[in-house]
């Protein structure tokens, strides 16, 4: 694995790579990310030119279509780091961080100039929980949660970036929360980008396995670090009419999440008894 950028002095300013899904579907996750960073005294800048890193095209095999997006991303973020306008790039996503810091090297293999820039940028690009715990050395962010939490380890985050301890550490310091481990927490939820459409039935079967494990954990909330997996898990939970929802870890850490009161078991009530006079069909 490539060497990550080391900081002699704590980073003061970061560029937010918000990711297109957070930007367009879950702005509250972006806002929570900003809040978490600012609370640590880190200034956040948002390069407004950013769109998508190109991962959907890359994963589907459309590398020709993904390359201009990769170069564009490098053009937007790399000068900010190179010119020391920011100390690092932070993204609330394991998957998009993987794309830009790992897969760009592969995608831009035949383009040495851009590949070198992508590698330089990749070393300074951090997933949110990694940045908080490993770079800033923060474990407690002042989060409260009155309920039961469980954690789903997203695949790219855990297996490509090797990030698992960081989000779990942050969650273990959430005041008031009971953190339970679900069965097979690091098993894929079945999203896999276009896989969810191209192999919809397999993807659904995998997702149902995940939602069964979530239900068994009896957690109020499933936290995770990627809104793509969150969309898949919530899509299933919502269709199944389940109470539990998946939320991005930034939302929990920024105290955005309230738990709806648990449904109370229905009280067994006796059916009203008719007066004895009319029982047994007496007229």
């Amino acid at each position, binding site marked *: 694995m490539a060497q990550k950028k080391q900081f002699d002095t704590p980073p003061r300013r970061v*560029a937010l790579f*918000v990711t*297109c899904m*957070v*930007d*367009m*579907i879950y*702005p509250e996750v*972006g*806002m929570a990310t900003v809040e978490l960073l600012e609370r640590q005294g880190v200034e956040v*800048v*948002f*390069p*407004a*030119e950013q*769109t*998508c890193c*190109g991962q*959907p*095209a890359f*994963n*589907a*095999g*459309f*590398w*020709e*279509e*993904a390359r*201009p*997006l990769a170069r564009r991303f490098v053009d937007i973020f790399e*000068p900010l780091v190179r010119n020391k*306008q920011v100390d690092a790039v932070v993204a609330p996503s394991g998957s998009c961080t993987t794309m830009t810091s790992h897969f760009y090297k592969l995608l831009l293999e035949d383009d040495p100039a851009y590949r070198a820039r992508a590698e330089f940028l990749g070393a300074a690009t951090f997933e949110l929980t990694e940045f908080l715990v490993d770079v800033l050395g923060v474990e407690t962010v002042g989060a409260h949660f009155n309920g039961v939490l469980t954690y789903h380890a997203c*695949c790219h985050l855990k*297996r490509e970036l090797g990030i698992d301890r960081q989000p779990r550490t942050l969650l273990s310091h959430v005041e008031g929360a009971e953190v339970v481990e679900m069965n097979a927490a690091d*098993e*894929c939820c*079945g*999203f*896999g*980008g*276009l*896989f*969810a*459409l*191209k*192999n*919809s*039935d*397999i*993807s*659904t*079967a*995998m*997702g149902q396995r995940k939602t069964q494990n979530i239900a068994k954990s009896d957690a109020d909330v499933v936290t995770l670090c990627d809104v793509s997996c969150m*969309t898949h898990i*919530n*899509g*299933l939970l*919502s*269709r199944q009419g389940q109470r539990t929802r998946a939320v991005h870890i930034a939302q929990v850490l920024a105290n955005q999440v309230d738990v709806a009161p648990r449904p109370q078991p229905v009280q067994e009530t006796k059916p009203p008894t008719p007066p004895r006079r009319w029982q047994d069909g007496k007229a």
Partner: protein
Amino acid sequence: MATSTIDLTLPYKTRVKDALGNKHLKIALERSTGRMAGQRVAAMNAVDGPRLRNQVRQMKEYVLRNLPDLLEQLETNITANGGRVHWAKEAVDVQRIVVEIARKANVQKVVKAKSMATEEVHLNQALQAAGMKVVETDLGEYIIQLAGEPPSHIVAPVIHRRVEEISDIFQRELDMPPTLDPQVICSVARGALRKEFLSADMGISGCNFAIAETGTCCIVTNEGNGRMTSTLPRVYVVVMGIEKLVPTVEDAFLQYQALSRSATGQQCSVYLSMTSGPRKPGDADGPEEFHVVLLDNGRVDMLAKGYGEALCCIRCGACLNVCPVYREIGGHAYGSTYSGPIGAVISPNIHLEVTDVDKLPYASSLCGACRDACPVKIDLPRMLVELRRDVVEAGDTTVFDRAGMQAFSRMMQSRASYEAAGGLGSLGSNLLAGLSGGVIKSLPGPLAAWTSSRDFPPLAKRSFRAQWRERMKGRKVIGEEQNA
């Protein structure tokens, strides 16, 4: 012999649909894959797993770098021991070579130890067409041969059948009285197979690894059938993929460690049978003739095409047991001799006829569990996306996919069109969601594949960037000036 209900030549979509709809398959896979995966983890944790993986990987890389020399060294040593080496470029060459050997030795009956290489080249069919009787002697292989089915797992060929179905097959084919007792079922198989061993003229096996420095072919089994296959019949033939090679005896035991622990979670298998040549004067047993067939069948091309890393594979099946896709659909849905993540990488590369082979690299969520489990650390997810790239570059995608991706890429290359699309998407999706309680229950076209089982959220009414712009009003914004 029963005719199989399993048809590997059906289209991919049908194979997957059949598998997902098969409740018994689900139970069978559930029972075995989880157990095998758990046993592997325990066995690898009992030693310095990471170190073992590093060592095997380095050894296999050495083998691939020195393949021509090592193969010739193997040939020299086998020949010196009195065996014969045959080079088979394609599947038909293996068939021709082995049928010729059998004819020359006047072979009527062949017993076989489990071998994926002979499955790959359809050797049984060729021998049967030449008038010989072929009996599989690995218990799993024996069961599926009785049922007329292809294997569905690299090391556990009958993983797709529950014990209840296996009992049915034995009752039907071997007149076994009804029982679910594995002891009884096994003893029925043992009784039937013993007769076959004693009357066979030729034994055929695959090869888990062959040692170049000594000319020794090794097979790893738990049933002893391999030993009988290699020693009882007059003629013994080994069919091995050219990558099943290790330089030294030490390396052989390295691979043996990794294989036993990763495949079945054992410290070592019950049997390790090693054959270096035919029976020598004074030997108590052993075959009169010993032949080794070296199989290419596209493996050399694989090296050239950049997928050589997959030739490090030691066929332990660990990646199948942890693959969430394999665990839902089993092996037959892949339509190939080799299933699971490694099958999805190998099948499009070697010379196999697989229906819809282009679909296999897409049969993965790229979760990476396979790479974590692999004792040789093969980067399977990376090769799967590279194979997808090859499919696209060869023009083997639908016009719809291509047009869609091109439009997506163009849209994302401009902030203005991205924001405009976001605005439109927000309007449209909120309209749709408004009709069904805040979430989208039904989408048109290819997106219907999502909403057939899952809801989708509407886009935000105000995007992050819109909220950010408001927040930063009047402040100097870094990153804006370059496009001001």
